[in-house]
């Protein structure tokens, strides 16, 4: 029997498809390598920190040059690496499934006694592995629960997103903002809500349209969402994605303004860049590692804010007029001093129900992190 031509074509197609699928994971972070803006300068060695050699493992859900979430955390890793007698091992592209368990166990096999699982979905695997290795300390980024040896840390990025919202609310011409979001977890909802509240504080007519992409980093999906927002008249893009670079570029091309996230991606949008909520994990990571090493670490949910320096506002782009910059910076001062509480009542959800009563103070972070609604002025539904 001879081969038949169309079959050969079929094989090529098949081959291409299998090949493409195998590589899909690898291509997630194909943005430009954006050098991190966060300096490692915040690293301080706590006096008396143990200098016994220690191995520390870092897990990332994506690539550490993703121009976003993982890159920001990687800057923290680099600061930890500078500590004396520290050996760091890292693993990129670790899925948020039982795969992460194996990677963490392999790190422990290699001597790791402190592990940073840095993605939200790494929490359950960390707790599971933690049960087996009670002497290993896990420091999870963003987790909403703890176990005996698994603590968490995170930062109030919504504070910076409130400020970005002020800038967005001032520069928008259509009064329509857009937010491309990965998953509808409380931390993303906090960002969206703060952004809308910030924008509304200076521009009552403004709305924020939300699109959920259901992946942390899918540049094609992000770009598609940006296009659909643009078609709806949105002229300011904000994102809660691990790799916002693709979206920023798409927005720039479409003539929209951009608010970035995680790192300063301003060079991707020379015209439309407004600002961004960025992370500076360096000091917190170093502090946590030092605490674990000298035995003072207690498992807890560490939550830091802009006042602690974990969350920063990226430099403004030229699209933000001077008076708006001044307004944003003045508001930042009020947040830093505690004079302004972003989620002080009244906060109404999309249906007009008062979720935080008028006159109520801003709930504590633990309570904020149970947020499961979008505020009035946000368009779009939390997928149920």
């Amino acid at each position, binding site marked *: *029997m*001879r*081969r*038949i031509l*169309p*079959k050969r074509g*079929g*094989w090529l*197609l*098949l*081959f291409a*498809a*299998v*090949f493409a*699928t*195998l*590589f899909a*994971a*690898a291509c997630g972070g194909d943005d430009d390598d954006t050098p991190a803006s966060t300096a490692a300068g915040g690293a301080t060695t706590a006096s008396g920190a143990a200098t016994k050699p220690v191995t520390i*493992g870092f897990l*990332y859900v994506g*690539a550490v040059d993703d121009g976003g979430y993982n890159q920001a955390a990687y800057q923290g890793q680099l600061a930890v690496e500078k500590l004396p007698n520290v050996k760091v*091992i*890292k*693993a*990129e*592209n*670790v*899925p*948020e*499934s*039982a*795969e992460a*368990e*194996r*990677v963490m*166990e*392999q*790190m422990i*096999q*290699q001597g790791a006694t402190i592990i940073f699982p840095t993605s*939200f*979905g790494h929490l359950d695997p960390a707790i599971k592995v933690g049960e*087996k290795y009670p002497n290993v300390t896990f420091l999870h980024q963003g987790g*909403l629960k703890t176990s005996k040896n698994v603590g968490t840390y995170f930062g109030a990025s919504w504070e910076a997103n409130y400020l970005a919202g002020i800038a967005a609310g001032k520069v928008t011409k259509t009064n329509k903002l857009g937010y491309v979001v990965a*998953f*509808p*977890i*409380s931390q993303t*909802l906090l960002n969206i809500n703060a952004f809308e509240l910030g924008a509304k504080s200076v521009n009552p007519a403004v709305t924020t349209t939300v699109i959920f992409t*259901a992946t942390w980093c899918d540049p094609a999906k992000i770009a598609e969402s940006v296009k659909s927002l643009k078609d709806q008249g949105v002229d300011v893009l904000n994102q809660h994605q691990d790799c916002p670079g693709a979206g920023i570029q798409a927005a720039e091309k479409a003539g929209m303004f951009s608010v970035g996230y995680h790192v300063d991606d301003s060079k991707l949008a020379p015209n439309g860049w407004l600002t961004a909520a960025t992370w500076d994990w360096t000091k917190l990571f170093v502090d946590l590692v030092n605490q674990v090493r000298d035995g003072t670490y207690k498992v807890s949910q560490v939550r830091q804010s802009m006042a602690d320096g974990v969350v920063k506002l990226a430099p403004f782009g030229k699209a933000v007029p001077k008076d708006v910059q001044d307004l944003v910076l003045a508001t930042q001062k009020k947040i830093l001093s505690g004079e302004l509480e972003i989620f002080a009542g009244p906060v109404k959800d999309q249906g007009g129900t008062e979720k935080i009563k008028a006159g109520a103070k801003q709930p504590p972070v633990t309570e904020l992190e149970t947020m*499961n609604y979008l505020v009035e002025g946000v368009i779009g539904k*939390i*997928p*149920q």
Partner: protein
Amino acid sequence: MTIAETVRTRIGAPAFGGPQLLGPFVRFGLAIGAAIAVFSVVLLLDGTNPLDTVQLMWDASVGTEFGRNEVLVKLIPFGLCALAVAVPARVGLINVGGEGQFYIGAWAAAGAILYSGAPGPALIPLALVAGALGGGAWAGIVALLRVKGGVNEAISSLLLNFVAIQFVNYFVYGPWKDPSGPNWPFSAKFPGSAMLPVVWGDRVTLAIVFVAVGLVAMFLVLRYTRIGYEARVVGGNPLAAERSGIPVARYLFLAMVVGGAIAGIAGMAEVTGIQGRLRPGISVNYGYIGFLAAWLGGHRPLGILLAALLFGAISVGGDSLQLGLDLPGSTVNILMALILFAVLAGRKNRTGVGA
């Protein structure tokens, strides 16, 4: 179009009877050797010593007890997904749909566990049956299209993978989302009675027995039964098979469905053995790697076992490239892809010899 004509548009090479000149071991060695050779060049270009790399991967996968156990953990999805390709391949069908059948099997198993209300001891058998039925039904779509409509099963099964993944996503993002979870896309946690018992090490579950049973059954059926014989005839020369009265269409249909059922069981084994709940991304390309393993193993039980072990070792050892050598996380994908190249190139040779 008669069935025979339909069948004739199938892949030309009878194959799977296998070439006599190149034994599976030789083919195996050549493919892996070639892939590693090219991979070494890539590593050298990166300034990494290939010998260190291979040594490290060996140590991480075969050289430690933990590594060996993890390879066995991977043998479960890889072995079952390879069987899901090999069974249809014996009648000449190309099943690229293992990934989707895996997801639907996992979905059906999860549904049975969470929503059937069955008592604890019944959960595992029920999930097993549900997984097999789910995967089988999903493959049944492909089989029907193939037998009734003459639709190329390689294409339809591949495309259905994406449908399956979205289908499962719909449930975990929507109606099946864990009500007590942080709005995170996964189902509620399965009760302990629904989890496959661990039979070896920390994570090797009873599903390893499914793999063994599957491989042995395939061997016995093909070698000693009439069904196996007729299936091989269908795969080797469908026209002759039809002329000699073998119900070719029935064989094509059943082989595809059985393949899908096996992939469905792999999905069931993953959620009840490893993940403990249904979530997106439960398969790390298991269906596709199983496909590679089946082709590398010549669709024979022993070959599949070896190939599945090999891919298990590569994926477990692949972690060490990051952890030990600080190579980018995607490096191991290069090696996997190179093996794919080598297998495909080797296949061309084979048909040259065998056809």
